[in-house]
């Protein structure tokens, strides 16, 4: 009797297991009536904030998958037409250029494109620029004086900087810097520069790691996007900040301005909802939210929206003269990093 009741229990259990599995299997398809799926490579905290506000405004819910920019772009390519994504939002333009070249993007509504300066967005109107961020050199203020800082990004590959540079070559933000150097100087000089960096640099996984190491003095300088220093500063306050940022001048490759943008995929299940989300991202409301929330330290591109006061005004920056097209799609950057032993 005891045995057979155990058998029954076991059968009930396996039934429950099957049910649990089916319930889990059913989960992803239980999409809301009006929702979009966002593949997000921008910072989670910013996008969570924006998504909630957008949901409140439009009634369209946003389902988010987070990841690293280059990986998500490659993922969308691999998924092809079956991708669940409606919108892709990322930190760097080359990933969007890659999807544009592969013909995976829908045209963005012209009203949305008109909201931001055209030089930042896709040349063919396939994606819209949302914000911009600057490449900078963070340095530890107890270890270095501003006068000791390098004139150019290329100086960091010289022997005198051995052990004094932090980089994050597998961070999505490093690839565009390599692409910029490649576009400006050609392959031979780029590889030479990367090999010099390889000899000099301490390697980190991401910009967060680099800027934290610079601040605590584990490494004297670090190549990062300005965003990360501002964020660390906001987190730890003036008292614990032992670092500052340095802008490469005179159109040096190191002063590259990266464009963060978004696109609606051709295979989108809800293209109208996707377009609505893009329009929202560049709207005055969303851009003000980003600029004033103290979680986003990028330059809003909507005319008239001022960036966080900790940032140097966008008009005062001296980035290298490269168009979005010249910067390209990062397709060579990974190869060069491997050649130099950084990946």
């Amino acid at each position, binding site marked *: 009797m005891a045995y*057979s009741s155990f058998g029954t229990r*076991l059968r009930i259990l396996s039934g429950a297991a099957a049910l649990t599995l089916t319930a889990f299997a059913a989960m992803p398809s239980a999409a809301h009536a009006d929702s979009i799926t966002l593949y997000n490579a921008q910072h989670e905290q910013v996008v969570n904030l924006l998504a909630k506000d957008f949901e409140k405004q439009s009634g369209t819910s946003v389902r988010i998958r987070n990841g690293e920019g280059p990986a998500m772009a490659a993922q969308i390519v*691999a998924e092809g037409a079956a991708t669940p994504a409606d919108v892709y939002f990322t930190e760097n333009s080359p990933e969007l250029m890659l999807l544009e070249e592969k013909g995976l993007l829908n045209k963005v509504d012209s009203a949305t494109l008109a909201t931001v300066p055209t030089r930042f967005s896709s040349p063919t109107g396939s994606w819209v620029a949302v914000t911009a961020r600057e490449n900078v050199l963070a340095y530890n203020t107890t270890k270095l004086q501003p006068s000791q800082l390098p004139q150019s990004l290329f100086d960091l590959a010289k022997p005198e900087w051995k052990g004094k540079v932090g980089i994050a070559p*597998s961070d999505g933000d490093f690839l565009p810097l390599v692409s910029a150097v490649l576009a400006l100087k050609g392959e031979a000089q780029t590889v030479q520069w990367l090999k010099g960096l390889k000899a000099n640099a301490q390697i980190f996984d991401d910009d967060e790691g680099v800027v934290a190491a610079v601040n605590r003095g584990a490494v004297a300088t670090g190549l990062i996007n300005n965003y990360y220093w501002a964020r660390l500063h906001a987190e730890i306050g003036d008292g614990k900040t032992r670092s500052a940022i340095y802008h490469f001048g005179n159109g040096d490759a190191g002063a590259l301005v990266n464009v963060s943008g978004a696109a609606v995929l051709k295979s989108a299940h809800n293209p109208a909802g996707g377009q609505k989300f893009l329009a929202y991202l560049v709207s005055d409301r969303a851009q003000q939210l980003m600029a004033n929330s103290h979680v986003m330290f990028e330059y809003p591109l909507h005319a008239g929206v001022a960036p966080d006061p900790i940032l140097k005004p966008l008009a005062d920056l001296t980035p290298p003269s490269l168009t979005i097209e010249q910067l390209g799609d990062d397709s060579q950057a990974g190869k060069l990093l*491997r050649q130099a032993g950084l990946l």
Partner: protein
Amino acid sequence: MSEALSAGPPAVSTVPARARSRAPRGLFAAAAFSALLVLLPIAFTFWRAASFGVGEAVDLIWRPLVGELLVNTVLITVATTLVCAVLGTAAAWFVERTHLPGRRVWAVLSAAPLAMPAFISSYAWVSLSQDLQDFNGALLVLSCAYFPLVYLPVAAALRGMDPALEESARALGCNRWSSFIRVVLPQLRPALLGGMLLVALGVLSEFGAFTLLRFHTFTTQIYAEFRTSFDGGGASLLACLLIVICLIVLAFEFRVRGAARYERVDRGTRRAVLRYELGGWRWVVVAGFALLTIVTLGVPLGMIGYWLTQPGAAAVTPADVSPELLFNATISSLGFGLAAALLTTLLVVPLAFLLVRYPTRFATLFERTVFLAQGVPGLVIALAIVSLAVHALQPLYQSATLLVVAYAMLFMPIALVSVRAAFMQAQPRLEETARALGLSWSQTLFRVMLPLAGPGLGAAAAMVFISVVTELNATLLLSPLDTQTLATQVWADTSTMAFAAAAPYAALLTGISLFASGLLFALLGRSALLGERG
């Protein structure tokens, strides 16, 4: 009866199962399915790697970085294994062979770090000091996490050892130290080596701790490849290299395990083991154990506690810790844990039954295949499953089902050990009686074998549950859209250095793991850990 007829040749269907040479086809097929499931991602990884041209593959493997990774990976594996060997053996010897004050407490505390995932203690140490990184940090965290893998088998071996040999050595003039080196240590060899190889496999597969501690090995590089190119690029080539290293270790482990069976000393009645007096040294040893406990458990739990009281900084916190998010993440973790525990246990039952009742060459082959999963890092399996799903199994892609199946692939070896042992203990005579009385083999399985093996099945399920809740790699790569678990939340917050935000998730995760492990220990493990009955 009709079931039995269809399952095997009619002429032998009434003969007790043991006497039959061939397993029922359904059983055989189910066991084969489990083995194939494990083989699938491994084979796929090699197939992907093979799709590179020779020149391209050589370019990708023969680069400076791979050499550095190899050195890092081998160094940290060897160093951690040695530290664990010394730490685990010393702890086991003091607990089992001396009159150590509070030895029961120390026995439990020496095994408890197994329930503390390495990436959680990395989080704690990193948040304590950012300087604790690279090789030294990794060595500290991993040694703390893995030394119980040496402690447990060595303690068991010390308990089971015949004191006569040691007494003879002492009588023949060996002092304490030389009798340990010349008599005790050789007898410990199978247990010690087996434990060390498990440590080595754990370190080779470790990913979360290395990333948080910023120490670069094969696994962190495979993840970097994933981050820069999704499933393209050289990840599969690096993965193949890592699999080969792991399989070499696994092969050694098989040999040691095989040898252990032959070297076991007779288990007849014997006197209680010799215990040494520590004299004045005992407080030094107690202080040592206290220090070990502080480092392995005190600091991680203390840091989690500390961060629980700190407010999170908005700028670095991916999401405000709301009760709702916390609740959802907990439910996801528990749900995945339960579903995977059930599926994994169900998948290994046919194979375990086949192994115990029809131990043919095929059964052994299936068993070995399942154990391969033990030697393949979770990150590699997860990556293969992502690729496989996106290219060939679209409907399952990004589904919760696929993640549960991935867990099953990863943790079948753990479940198999326990379920097979349980079936072995079930007396075949009872099964034969049931068969003779006319039950089909499936009825026998459900009404006789499974109830007898119940505790073993429960243990298997519980161990899989704990493994799943604390799993990071597969969860990170395969979790469905909009689904966060406790582990992925700790990961997301820690990698942006939002330590306060990570704390509630880390606390819950550790709490569940410690609680479930404690439960498992209370129900089944007491005799294994303390050498007591019941």
